[in-house]
């Protein structure tokens, strides 16, 4: 290896890095800018409602059984005539997901027979204490079916 070929090789490298200066940036300036999530993205969970406002979840606990890490807790209760929460016989009285344990595999979404639980596009889930990672039913339930869904663009493909 001669000095000349060494210098030439270094110059080729410098040309590459210099050329990069004039190319468009690929870095996304998070958190000011956000990159786009795909339709299938598996982020924060949501519990969906039917168009008439009733909750989809029928408290069958299939999501809890399918979850590989066992981070879902469902306690079901009977629907009554006065208190009708979901169309089926039962509804989820308690529905909790421990987000610290969740690995976002999406198996709960696949297992749910009525497509009540879905994984949305949100991924910025940091928080200041461990307790706040236990997502309760109030946090998971979408407020009303009239609003545009929070999991916009998410299609169920399973």
């Amino acid at each position, binding site marked *: 290896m001669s000095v000349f070929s060494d210098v030439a090789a270094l110059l080729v490298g410098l040309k590459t*890095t210099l050329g990069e200066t004039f190319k468009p940036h690929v870095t996304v300036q998070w958190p000011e800018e956000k990159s786009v999530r795909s339709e299938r993205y598996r982020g924060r969970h949501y519990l969906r409602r039917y168009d008439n406002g009733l909750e989809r979840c029928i408290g069958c606990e299939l999501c809890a059984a399918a979850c*590989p890490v066992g981070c879902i807790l469902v306690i079901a209760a009977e629907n009554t005539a006065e208190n009708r929460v979901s169309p089926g016989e039962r509804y989820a009285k308690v529905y909790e997901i421990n987000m610290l344990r969740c690995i976002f595999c999406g198996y709960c979404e696949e297992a749910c027979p009525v497509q009540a639980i879905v994984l949305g596009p949100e991924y910025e889930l940091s928080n200041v204490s461990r307790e706040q990672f236990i997502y309760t039913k109030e946090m998971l339930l979408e407020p009303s079916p009239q609003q545009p869904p929070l999991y916009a663009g998410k299609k169920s493909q399973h």
Partner: protein
Amino acid sequence: MSSSPTGVTISREPAEGHVGGELLTVNFGPQHPSTHGVLRLVVILDGEVIRGVRPVIGYLHTGIEKQMEALRWQQGVVVTDRHDYLSPLHNNLAYAMAVERLVGVEPPPRAQALRVIMCELTRISSHCLWLGTSSLELGAMSMFMYCLRERETVLAMNEEISGYRMHTSYIRPGGVMADATERFWDMLADFVEKMPGHVDEYEDLLTNNPIWKRRTVGIGYLSAEDAVRLGASGPMVRGSGLPWDLRKTMPYSGYEKYDFEIAVEEAGDCYARYLCRIKEFRESVRILKQAMASIPDGPINVDERKMLPPPREELETSMEAVIHHFKLFTEGYSVPSGDVYAAVESPRGEHGCYVVSDGTHKPRRVKFRSASFVNLQALEHMAMGSMIADMIAMIGTADTVLGDVDR
């Protein structure tokens, strides 16, 4: 004076004829940034020359093999994603192939082609991370940014097809999770178009660079015989001149249909292993192009209702479908008893999965033959007699993933 492999301090041992009349035992890692995770090496030094290396592992032990025993067959997939976190698709594939062989099913051609596409993309992204970090450690800063730029594209494709960037769980026993979207094919077409140009850029920066060559040529020599004796695989043997690549030597998932070459280099040093991986970038792009062009139509899962949930539409109309759906997600399917070994060529070498079934709905035992673990054994052999500073280059080109070593 301690020469114990668990010593935590620098210890000195009087030894005639060595620099300063003593041998030095130094801990390298586990928090050293260049050990690619938490590898700890107890290095015995004579001055700056390495006289012994003992890898101390287990800092990232997560009990993954044991966990698999507690999970049903279809749940195990999510765990396989997580030991070699740089090539999750290959881990998925080895496990899926093992389960499929036990059940006695063959995934349909479209699923096989999608598996090949995803595995080759993973190989590229894994090599990108390897090249980026290894060259960063040897002083080539900008390489890291360029390589991660391409890796990002692959991760975006992972996200598009499976919904997650790293732990995709895309390949499952019986087929794949979902078919590719239109946007995925567009991204892939764009990627295979641009990637060769990016590899040229990497080569412009490194291949003839005198500093890079000084740090890698002749460093970490491993002869072909030693590589075989130590059970090394992947670029570790191909860099020593042995054309051993499971995709060619024991084809799986339809690799025999694609026209590509095994990347081989003769020299057996760090530079040869680097060249090997650069060639693999190009060969992977070649496979991707062929797989894209020739992807057959058809189902993406086996025609075996036992292993798969019924289609969504049937849940509305058929009681049998509902019962089957419930049974599958609570109890899972059972796999005939027996044992099987399935191996794939991961970016690091032969990644094998040995599964024992006792006929129930959970595996009796799952064992991974991880390339990282076996390749790590070659480290001492490569390092003997070289300078301590070259250790970085050797760990780099051995490309071990500590999650995969400890499992």
